[in-house]
């Protein structure tokens, strides 16, 4: 999958962002929490690449540090909703009786717009990283359940599943060894998309003021704080905005790439080296 240029750039961007944000303390020239009260709302310069905020803090450092929360929330939500969604989806797809019960609950949850549901949950639970993760997981896993269930419904009718039953294999083994490996690709693809969507959702929640507490730098918090200064210091909003867009876009492109890589029907589109047409030597008689 990474052989394609289209996928390589977003992949590299995400890896770089991850490494940069983890090791930020060691290499940032200016500590992101250092307030230079003479340099408030400064335009980008050689010292402050992205400019400074209303406290005179380095925006570059802030933006990089803020990626921690976004990536942490995104990854955890993606992981948790994948696990939950896969388990419920497998059960719903395989057992007809439980299907009706599980899917009605899922349908009920899907009836709420996911961001609104998360908003209500965070408002009720209180804003903290853990609560945001809980709220977002709760609003995103029903989608995963649907995806997994529909794939299971397809796979369970393929003959090898019936053949496994005929040879006396137990249901848990059938689910984990015969069905799960064969529905893995939609799960991974959907997981990537949930990753991207929860980064966006976390930023939106923080922007609305119900997300992570304002003292922790996140892209959403930065956007929220920058609102008032948008005419004076547009760079304050632009750079976190660019990072949100770039991260979400990268994840979506990767998700598409994964889907193509798993989809046997799109393999034909791969560029193949055209073999020059060899003409058979004709022997004159």
């Amino acid at each position, binding site marked *: 999958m990474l052989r394609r240029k289209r996928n390589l750039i977003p992949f590299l961007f995400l890896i770089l962002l991850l490494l940069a944000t983890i090791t930020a303390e060691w290499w940032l020239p200016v500590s992101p929490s250092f307030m230079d009260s003479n340099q408030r709302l400064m335009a980008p310069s050689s010292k402050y690449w992205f400019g400074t905020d209303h406290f005179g803090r380095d925006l570059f450092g802030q933006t990089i540090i803020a990626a921690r929360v976004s990536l942490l929330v995104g990854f955890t939500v993606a992981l948790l909703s994948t696990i939950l969604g896969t388990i419920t989806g497998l059960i719903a797809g395989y057992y*007809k009786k439980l299907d009706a019960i599980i899917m009605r609950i899922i349908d009920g949850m899907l009836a709420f717009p996911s961001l609104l549901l998360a908003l209500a949950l965070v408002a009720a639970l209180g804003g903290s990283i853990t609560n945001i993760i809980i709220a977002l997981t709760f609003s995103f896993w029903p989608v995963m359940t649907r995806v997994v269930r529909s794939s299971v419904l397809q796979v369970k009718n*393929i*003959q*090898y599943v*019936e*053949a*496994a*039953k*005929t*040879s*006396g*294999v*137990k249901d848990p*083994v059938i689910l984990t*060894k*015969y069905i799960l*490996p*064969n529905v893995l690709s939609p799960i991974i693809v959907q997981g990537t998309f949930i990753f991207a969507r929860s980064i966006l959702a976390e930023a939106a929640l923080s922007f609305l003021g119900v997300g992570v507490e304002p003292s922790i730098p996140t892209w959403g918090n930065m956007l929220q704080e920058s609102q008032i200064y948008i005419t004076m210091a547009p760079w304050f909003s632009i750079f976190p905005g660019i990072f949100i867009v770039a991260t979400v876009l990268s994840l979506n492109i990767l998700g598409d790439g994964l889907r193509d890589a798993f989809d046997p029907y799109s393999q034909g589109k791969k560029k193949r080296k055209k073999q020059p047409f060899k003409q058979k030597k004709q022997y004159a008689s």
Partner: protein
Amino acid sequence: MLEIKNLKAYIDTSDGVVKAVDGVSFSIKPGETIGIVGESGSGKSVLAHSIMQLNPKPPTFYPEGEILFNGKNLLQLKEKELRKIRGNEIAMIYQDPMSSLNPVFKIGDQLMEAILTHHSMPKSKARQRAIELLTDVGISDAEKRFNSYPHQFSGGMRQRVLIAIALACNPKILIADEPTTALDVTIQAQILELMKSIQEKYGTAIIIISHDLGVVAQMAEKVLVMYSGRIVEKGNVEDIFYHTSMPYTWSLLRSLPRIDSESRTRLLNIEGQPPNLIHPPSGCNFHPRCPFATDQCKTVDPQLSKRSADHSAACILSEEEFNEAKKRIEKGEQERRMEHV
């Protein structure tokens, strides 16, 4: 060993109850081969799945009958006990070898899985047994092939692997549901040959389900002809093929292309469609399509009656009447053909 008594398997659908298997009885002894023939929708596969108890319940239900396997009624066993029988005592081979193997696991692992499901033994021993089995079903270089994935195998080889999986626990009965339908003719012959040699080696009883009369003639000793969920004729291969005494069987046989036919005539077909199993026709189920049908057939539902010691058929015509009618029809056809010429 296996005895089926008046088995009825009905399927509850929104349009009504489909009588997929409607009062079937037969029995099979160790080492015997029984062929079940019939057209699509005649209930062959539902019957096979009933023996394995693999019909989804609901909508399938069994209003009557018994499936006795070594004295135990399979219809009353719990899922857990059934699992011990499936694969271990009764195994099954499917029609489509292309989709009957799990694409993400190695051939060898799937074979070992089949062995280890029913027998606890060290993995090295299971592996050894798996390689033995692969050799038994004629896969050369089994040691190397053990680590292949299903997509690296051809259809015939996959069917061999499936046979190996079915034989993994040395079952007493092997149900082959159209085992050769998806294979080309040369491979078909090889697979049938293989099944025969396996039967000799392991003493397995085989139930072979097919719509291919040739396959059944080659493999089976006894034949059951099914039509609309019932057995309409049963007997030895000889009886069925040479002393046919049921119009349906006769029509089936006549619709086969024959290598020894004297004239280049069109293939004969059976007019009409298989009956609706929700509202079966009155009287004999076959009468709307039967060239011999009389008014009596619309009201009388014939039961299986003896023609000779092992041979019985469900038709109101006696053997003599049937033979006479047969001659009459064949003669009429010949005359019509002559007119055309």
